[in-house]
């Protein structure tokens, strides 16, 4: 049934499920995105990010649940929704022996756009010098910028990017980020970006959704998520000698501490409240057991720490 939903949400995903054979890729996800909101779907490989985004893109059909784009479902509204959505898939390969400008002209023709829009995109993506280069001769970063440029051709109200910087070197990644940051300033486009890079989510997005095994496990702004894990700091340390089994156990009972696999170091979590007291106790412990402190680094808790504490897995696994 073709439903139209009257709501403020640009994207409204309601209790969506999707399975492939015995694998539940998306398992009852609810998600709402407002106009101009930049949202990151953050999770490791196989978390269900791509399946969820592909259902929003209309490429996959949910087993159950509903997806509304500006209040409309895909069925029967394909032409209208394609006009307002821009997307970049994981691993799209364009026609090898077409040039950058020929590829942009091809995609422009689908949206009936003037030549001037193609020029704007070439400038935005910094591909001026590559306009006559064949796609096959572009670097990974240039191809990704072109894919992003094609996604932006129609000035989309909704932009869906599936791991736009995976496999890129830091320079190429920051070039893609710069394009997106410019877009963010205008507040005209709502973005859903899937990634397993926490820095990408932190840098680009207002709202972060942590996803694992098809479930949303936490969501909120960066500050909300980090605060939720408790007002803590992480202190990474290494020792000159490996503690005895008795010392290891004693340390674990006295402190909130996780040893590294080799036991010559670990991560100590301390609350922001009275940090000097906790640190003094820890230093006393090391001194009494003659555990020689080699290095000591205090850092803020990250999304990866949060994900690790929630799932026992790293984001980049």
């Amino acid at each position, binding site marked *: 049934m073709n439903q139209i939903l009257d709501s403020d949400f640009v994207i409204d995903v309601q209790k969506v499920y999707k399975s492939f054979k015995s694998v539940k890729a998306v398992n009852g996800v609810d998600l709402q995105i407002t106009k101009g909101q930049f949202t990151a779907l953050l999770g490791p490989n196989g978390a269900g990010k791509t399946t969820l985004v592909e259902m929003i*893109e*209309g*490429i*996959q059909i949910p087993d159950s649940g509903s997806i509304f784009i500006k209040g409309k479902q895909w069925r029967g509204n394909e*032409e209208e929704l*394609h*006009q307002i*959505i821009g*997307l970049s*898939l*994981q*691993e*799209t*390969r*364009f*026609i*090898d*022996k*077409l040039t950058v400008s*020929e*590829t942009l*002209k*091809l*995609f*422009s*023709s*689908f*949206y*009936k756009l*003037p*030549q001037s829009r193609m020029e704007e995109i070439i400038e935005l993506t910094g591909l001026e010098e590559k306009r006559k280069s*064949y796609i096959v001769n572009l670097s990974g970063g240039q191809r990704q910028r072109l894919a992003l440029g*094609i996604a932006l051709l*129609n000035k989309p109200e909704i932009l869906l990017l599936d791991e736009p910087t995976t496999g890129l070197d830091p320079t190429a990644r920051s070039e893609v980020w710069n394009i997106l940051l410019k877009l963010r300033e205008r507040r005209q486009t709502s973005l859903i970006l899937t990634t397993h890079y926490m820095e990408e989510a932190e840098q680009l997005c207002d709202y972060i959704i942590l996803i694992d095994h098809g479930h949303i496990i936490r969501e909120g702004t960066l500050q909300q998520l980090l605060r939720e894990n408790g007002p803590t700091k992480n202190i990474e340390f290494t020792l000159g000698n490996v503690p005895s089994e008795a010392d290891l156990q004693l340390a674990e009972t006295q402190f909130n501490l996780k040893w590294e696999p080799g036991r010559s170091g670990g991560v100590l979590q301390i609350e922001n409240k009275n940090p000097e007291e906790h640190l003094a106790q820890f230093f006393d412990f090391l001194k009494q057991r003659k555990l020689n402190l080699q290095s000591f680094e205090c850092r803020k808790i990250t999304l990866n720490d949060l994900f690790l504490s929630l799932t026992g897995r790293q984001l980049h696994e």
Partner: protein
Amino acid sequence: MNNRITSHQLFRLTSAYFLELIREPGVIFWGIVFPILMALGLGIAFTKKPDMTRTVAVIGGVESQTQHLPVLHGIVNRNGFQLSRMDGPTEKYSFSIENEKIGKTTYILIPTTLENALQLLKRGNINLILEEVDEDIIYHFDPSNPEAQLVYLQLSKILKSGFSINEQVAENIEPMTVTGTRYIDFLIPGLMAMGIMMSCMWGISYGIIDKRTKKLLRRMIATPMKKHHFLIALITVRLGMNFVEAALLFIFALLFFHISIQGDVSALTAVFISGNICFSGIAIFTSSRTANTEVGNGLINAVVLPMVVLSGIFFSYHNFPNWSIPVIQKLPLTMLADGMRSIFIEGAGWPETVFISTTMSLIGVVFFSTGLKIFRWY
């Protein structure tokens, strides 16, 4: 050119596929140069008078070896030929028959044991064994092997008759060299038909599967692109390419072998277009589901190979068993090749080919619509 036309998605898609095609040097070679080379090779091989060599083994009875071929020497010399020993470490003898109408045939006779002779036969070096028994010759060969049968007939004629085959051919054989009756006249329309099939099947089917594998199809369909424009553009480019290929092959054959179109050119155009419609439809159907190029290779081969073997492109399919002929004649490639041949060499026109053109077009439309219904865009 009008900006509205050049910015139209159908124009852009057609232009993109055309550029993709012509920028690949392999396409030019395999699509245009290779069929011409094949026509040249086969045309020369089957139109020039051949210098044939027929090798046979000679034994002197079970488990023994004939020394110096005493019986054959006597018979061959008696019939007016010169049996001479060939240079080389292995004992071999030869004699030749030469005639300006049928060319030169050299018979090489290898004296050997039965065991060696059988080994040569199994390896395909020979297909006939002669046995000298007393003053006579016995022929050992597989009667179902046409080559062996031919050598038997030739040799038995020479060795048994009291007169030379050389004289006989001079009297009775009149070589057919009139345009339309030569092998090359049979071959060229067949090659054109096969070119259309191969080009559609590999160009369209493989092109679609490749785009699906690269997720380009998925990316394109996520825009307001019209699906039928995507397919029409692919078919249009292929039709244009097939026309160029066929035209160049025809021009080459015209200049080199002086072939001609004896029937109605407009009917030939109709057969050509309907052949393209037919194989484009089959190509869309074949590529409608798979996203794996290896599976795609298998599927395309499963469609084209039986037709290449059965449809009489290189040699007449009338050599197959009688029960299979009506089935073979209903294969799309057979229809296309027969239709083109009837116009090229039999002087056929619309009345003789309208059924073939209509049937092929219908086959194309049915496969196209079925393929489109089950087509996997994502």
